[in-house]
């Protein structure tokens, strides 16, 4: 760079300097609302603090070492794995099948209107405020007045379970609601991904005598890889962050069976008045999210590179 004529260089730099003005509002806002609070949160996590005006006591990494011996903390992250199953694995698989069936079969053999109508119904839970969805499901699962048990009674089940009220059924019930909420997202994205795939690829494969399933495996899956990665990344982050459904469905209970990290830090902040401890939980959650996101991104980069080499 320094070898170039200095005049051109300086002019270019002056032209660039103007753009820092455009950057200013965004950077100030980001600093005030995200960077400073994040730093403060880390600072809190190094203290024992009841919050508000009460005094803060330096505790070093004490909160973090306490976390290691906290059964509730570990079970909250164990439940995060179940949240990933319910928000990433199951919806992505079901969404892929639904998208393929809607696009390949319903769209071509029944009609595009039917396909887009079905797609809209699958997507409907996605636009519902999560709090509203949670409240309706909470009532559906209600042991005495809920619809699910009314239905079970009517087909002769004498003692249907108290879905959200007993530790053995609460987690599966919550997972069911999350699957219901999530399905529409991968379905819609995969459907638009399928439209992107060149139909000639399928025609060539069909001429070679490949059946539907072989075409699906050899053409569809590799072609829609970018979308699959985007869905995996965004949904995994969302699953690790999940809060509202837990809050309106179970509040982490019964007996902590549906506790998740975000709810656990909320609980420490406002119910237990252990702000430092809650801040430590939140910081660990952040770390986990960043690491998981980085790993997924890394896998994507590697896979993209492999594909490029494969082409050559």
């Amino acid at each position, binding site marked *: 760079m320094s070898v170039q004529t200095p005049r051109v260089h300086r002019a270019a730099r002056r032209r660039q300097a103007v753009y820092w003005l*455009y950057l200013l509002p965004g950077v100030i806002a980001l600093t005030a609302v995200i*960077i400073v609070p994040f730093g403060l949160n880390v600072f809190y996590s190094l203290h024992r603090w009841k919050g508000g005006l009460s005094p803060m006591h330096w505790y070093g990494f004490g909160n973090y070492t306490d976390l290691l011996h906290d059964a509730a903390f570990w079970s909250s992250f164990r439940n995060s794995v179940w949240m990933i199953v319910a928000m990433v694995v199951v919806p992505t698989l079901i969404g892929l099948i639904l998208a393929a069936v809607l696009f390949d079969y319903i769209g071509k053999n029944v009609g595009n209107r039917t396909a887009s109508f079905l797609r809209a119904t699958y997507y409907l839970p996605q636009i519902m405020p*999560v709090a509203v969805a949670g409240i309706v499901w909470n009532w559906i699962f209600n042991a005495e007045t809920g619809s699910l048990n009314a239905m079970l009674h009517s087909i002769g089940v004498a003692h249907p379970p108290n879905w959200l009220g007993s530790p053995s059924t609460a987690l599966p019930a919550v997972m069911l609601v999350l699957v219901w909420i999530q399905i529409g997202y991968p379905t819609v994205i995969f459907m638009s991904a399928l439209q992107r795939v060149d139909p000639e690829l399928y025609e060539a494969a069909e001429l070679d005598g490949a059946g539907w399933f072989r075409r699906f495996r050899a053409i569809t899956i590799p072609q829609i890889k970018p979308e699959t990665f985007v869905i995996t990344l965004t949904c995994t982050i969302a699953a690790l962050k999940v809060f509202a459904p837990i809050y309106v469905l179970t509040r982490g209970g019964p007996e902590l069976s549906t506790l998740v990290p975000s709810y656990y*830090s909320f609980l420490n902040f406002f119910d237990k008045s252990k702000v430092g401890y809650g801040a430590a939980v939140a910081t660990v959650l952040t770390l986990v999210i960043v690491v998981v996101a980085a790993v997924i991104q890394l896998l994507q980069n590697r896979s993209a590179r492999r594909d490029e080499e494969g082409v050559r």
Partner: protein
Amino acid sequence: MTTLAQAPTEVAAPVKATRTGDRHHRGALRWVVLVGCAVIAVLMLAPFVLMLINAFKSPGDYSTHGPLSLPTNLYFTGLTKFWNTVDFPVKLWNSIWTSAAVSVLGTGLSLLTAYAIGVGRVRGRAWLVAVFLLANMLPQEVLLYPLYTMAQKVGLNNSGWSIVIIFTVIQSAFGTYLLASVLGTFPKALLEAAALDGANSWRVLWRVVFPIVRPTLAVLMIFFFIWTWNEFFIPLVMLTTPASQTVPIALSSLQGDRLLDVPTLNAGALVSLLPTLLFFLFFQRTLTRGVTAGAVK
């Protein structure tokens, strides 16, 4: 969307008709698949249907006939009870103005920042994009308590403005990430032509860049509006007085009420869902396009 989907059908249809012999088998399969898809659609819609039939059922009717029967006669008291208990018009207005403010301010902020990164190519832009991406990934819990104390200090707790400020920044972190990559591929020729005409960077932004990225900005605005509307965690903590609460918070605050009857709850859920539903139907085409655009990026 539909035009894209239709194209392959017309090409494929004649080929298939000539080749497939077992039309009976195909007809049966067609019905099995269709019924399967319909069953899933019914399961997806069931909660909405249950909500709808129980929102207009009297408590007496509910306790004698249960949640699965159709209402014997239409009952609107649940609806009015919810409307009045939570003072719904206030909540609705709070949700509308905060979401609208975030969608406009957030999109504007995203555009300015992305312009500096994508067109201005400021130094260290890769790092900047990484910071915005990271900001977008942070769980809100990690910001919550500091934001809560900061808002208290400046007197913005229990004010919709705290929501506007916080979500303008959080949403624009995503917007900047998306727009910066869009503007990074902005046609150089257009920018150079404008520069030759003597346009300064401000004029270039509004006369050259803005008209071209307007569709993307529209999608961002719709996303920001719906996301802010549905936001739960930070508003739950920030807005503790009834006068400042948004629709989802008002509904969830009813939940703890033991005296609350099921029709009122369902009517409340229905009324709280309607604005987003209408909004969705209104902007459906733009939105599906947006989901697609976000996915390919």
